[in-house]
């Protein structure tokens, strides 16, 4: 009981802090200096219609590389943690799952290609529309999740996933290095012509990089899902 009271007291203090922040908040009426720079220069320098994409992929491209690396390490640790070590206690027999049902099976067969297509559309158009590699990759992984829900015993090819992931990561870094050699810096997008604002083939290498990020993120999330679901499968094969 006293623990709960302490928790509530702590929350009250944090809540008071938040309330004073909220009460003292005055929204800006003008863009600040950084934002103004991005808003002014993006169209001319980068050629991407979506300013957020220009920031994520080119202005702060190095940070995005770091982010993708963090995601890669996470996927690797999830695989490592789940793969190693024997359970200390003997397995309690799991009851077999009920069948997933006609609706989900048929629905997943119809929807998965469409979901994958939407994911690809979202990351290819990342420089024009509110989308991009991370969002598209997450959509692709949600298609994989649907497949796993429809058939929990489905096995994804880990080899394919890891080849796809390392290849796109390697190409991402390779394009960055090419930017040093042939354009003005690491991950510079002016490796390819900037083109006309608002067209699919514009903004230099941004669509290429974001597609690679999309593939990589999709592969990483899929490998996390596959690893989390396969724990169950090994249980089942041990029982049978």
């Amino acid at each position, binding site marked *: 009981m006293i623990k*709960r009271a302490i*928790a*509530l007291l*702590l*929350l009250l203090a*944090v*809540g008071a802090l*938040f*309330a004073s*922040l*909220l009460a003292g*908040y005055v*929204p*800006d*009426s003008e*863009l*600040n200096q*950084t*934002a103004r720079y*991005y*808003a*002014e220069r*993006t*169209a*001319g320098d980068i050629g991407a*219609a*979506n*300013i*957020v994409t220009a*920031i*994520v992929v080119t202005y*702060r491209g190095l940070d*995005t590389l770091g*982010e993708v690396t*963090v*995601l890669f390490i*996470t*996927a690797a*640790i*999830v695989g490592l*943690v*789940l793969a190693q*070590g024997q*359970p*200390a*206690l003997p397995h*309690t027999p799991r009851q077999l799952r009920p069948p997933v049902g006609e609706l989900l099976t048929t629905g997943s067969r119809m929807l998965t290609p469409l979901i994958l297509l939407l994911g690809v559309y979202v990351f290819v158009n990342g420089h*024009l529309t*509110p989308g*991009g590699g*991370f969002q598209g990759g*997450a959509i692709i992984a949600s298609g994989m999740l649907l497949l796993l829900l429809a058939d929990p015993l489905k096995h994804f090819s880990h080899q394919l996933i890891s080849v796809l992931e390392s290849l796109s990561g390697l190409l991402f870094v390779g394009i960055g290095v090419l930017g040093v050699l042939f354009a003005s810096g690491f991950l510079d997008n002016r490796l390819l012509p900037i083109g006309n*604002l*608002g067209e699919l083939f514009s903004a230099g290498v941004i669509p290429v990089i974001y597609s690679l990020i999309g593939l990589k*993120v999709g592969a990483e*999330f899929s490998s*996390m899902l596959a*690893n*989390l679901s396969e*724990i169950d499968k090994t249980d089942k094969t041990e029982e049978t």
Partner: protein
Amino acid sequence: MISLAQMAMATGFILILIGFYGALTQRNLLRMIVAFSIADAGVNIVIVAIGHMRGRTAPIIDAAVPVADAVARVIDPVPQALVLTAIVIGVGVTALMLAYALKLHERKRTLDIARFTELKW
């Protein structure tokens, strides 16, 4: 008059508090993970709300936002780029927590945090 940004910010703060409360009081590991995800969503909402400006539109240059006029028409793109990163890292953190929870459950066949006493003092 409460603006949209203030409403969104208040929602975000409330979500953070709900998440903290859940993380502090729940005993079940899965519920704690859900609580952390809620707090995470709250933080993201607050950051996006900070970037919002009255009467402006999304930072995408198109027919509605001509290039010459962009500075006066778009909201701050930097918080949105930050949140894009934060969401992705949040998913990674959640996946890690779930993997550890699964492993812990495999060891002790329970998700009750009170049963894990190895590091307790």
